[in-house]
């Protein structure tokens, strides 16, 4: 009898444990929810959205290629422009009618691949524009989720990304490393061209 009870408990345990472990989780809708609050949700949103992450990394790469001064400008202007665009997006309605991420990929990718030496002011205008536009669409997306605190998270992670990546590129001395960055830029531009194709096909 005792053995039967023991085996029954054993059976119950081995069935109940997988049942608890495999219980279907809640359906997660659209926005990234980390469970750690809106700031981390914003960070998660940027890190898990390649449409935003790749242009942000590309801006950092280009800033690094351009040198210390543009790198410092990008460090502050880019996250601030992104945040400003996001705040505007929070209070507006809109929808993408042109493939913004694809154009960002293409333009920044070509600039990196060609190692084009834009004057610093032009460079600043470019990164502010990229930041404003991407931030605006982030604002629209985060309106019903983490909101302005999410944008703070995005701004913070952008600051870190730009600081780390551009400083890394600035510090690279061997000539082949600069070529590697340029090759990466060509890949980003190629992705942009393909994305335009997908967009024109009606599939993103």
């Amino acid at each position, binding site marked *: 009898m005792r053995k039967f009870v023991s085996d029954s408990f054993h059976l119950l345990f081995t069935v109940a444990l997988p049942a608890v472990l495999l219980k279907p989780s809640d*359906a997660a*809708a659209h926005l990234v929810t980390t469970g750690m609050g809106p700031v981390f949700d914003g960070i998660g949103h940027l890190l898990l959205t390649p449409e935003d992450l790749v242009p942000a990394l590309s801006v950092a790469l280009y800033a690094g290629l351009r040198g210390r001064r543009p790198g410092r400008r990008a460090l502050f202007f880019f996250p601030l422009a992104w945040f400003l665009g996001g705040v505007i997006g929070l209070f507006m309605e809109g929808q993408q009618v042109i493939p913004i991420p694809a154009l960002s990929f293409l333009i920044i990718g070509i600039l990196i691949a060609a190692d084009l030496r834009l004057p610093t002011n032009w460079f600043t205008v470019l990164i502010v524009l990229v930041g404003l536009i991407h931030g605006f669409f982030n604002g629209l997306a985060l309106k019903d989720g983490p909101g302005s605190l999410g944008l703070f998270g995005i701004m913070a992670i952008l600051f870190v990304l730009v600081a780390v990546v551009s400083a890394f590129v600035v510090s690279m001395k061997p000539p082949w490393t600069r070529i590697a960055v*340029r090759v990466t830029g060509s*890949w980003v*531009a*190629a992705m942009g*061209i*393909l*994305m335009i*194709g997908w967009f024109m096909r009606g599939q993103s």
Partner: protein
Amino acid sequence: MKQPAGYMNYLVWFLMLSVYLFWASSAQAHVEQGQAVGFVTGLEHPWSGLDHVLAMIAVGLWGAQLGNPAMWILPVTFPMVMSLGAMMGLLGIPLPGIEIGIAVSAILLGGMVLGEVRPKLVVAAVLVGFFAIFHGHAHGTELPAGQSGLLYSMGFVIATGCLHGIGITIGLVHRWPTGKLALRGAGAFIAVMGIYFLWQAVV
């Protein structure tokens, strides 16, 4: 007494396995699907055809033979022009003789490596770019529907770049006399394979 316990163990394992196998999966409403699949499919696609693989490695080999700046200009040119070809494929713009073009690319690029031909940089870039359109178009028309276009594109471009990288890395043996000979042998192999692909495409 041992036998009932043994049966109980079997029963436990059977039930446990049943729970694992038959438990309903999570209802994933709204969560975007096909994202990882898109990237992996894109990453796999350029490796799926030997004709593509050999032609792209040949670009890297030739670049390594030519040295700087061709070593990196050719692999930069190829993915960008290839994506233009893929865009044509995506939009349904027809390109005649794709398979023949791909086969001829293997023959010519292999021939360039075999003969260690050193044309002007512009000529080399135009040649590589011209054939990249055929490779891109073939990929563009084969792109699967229902997956993330961006992630597919990322995987696709990265894989292509890696193939060039493999070619360049192999091509670094060019600095040694035996390596030079081996590279020319690799070029001959690629050209012969190109003839085989051409035969397959025509017959």
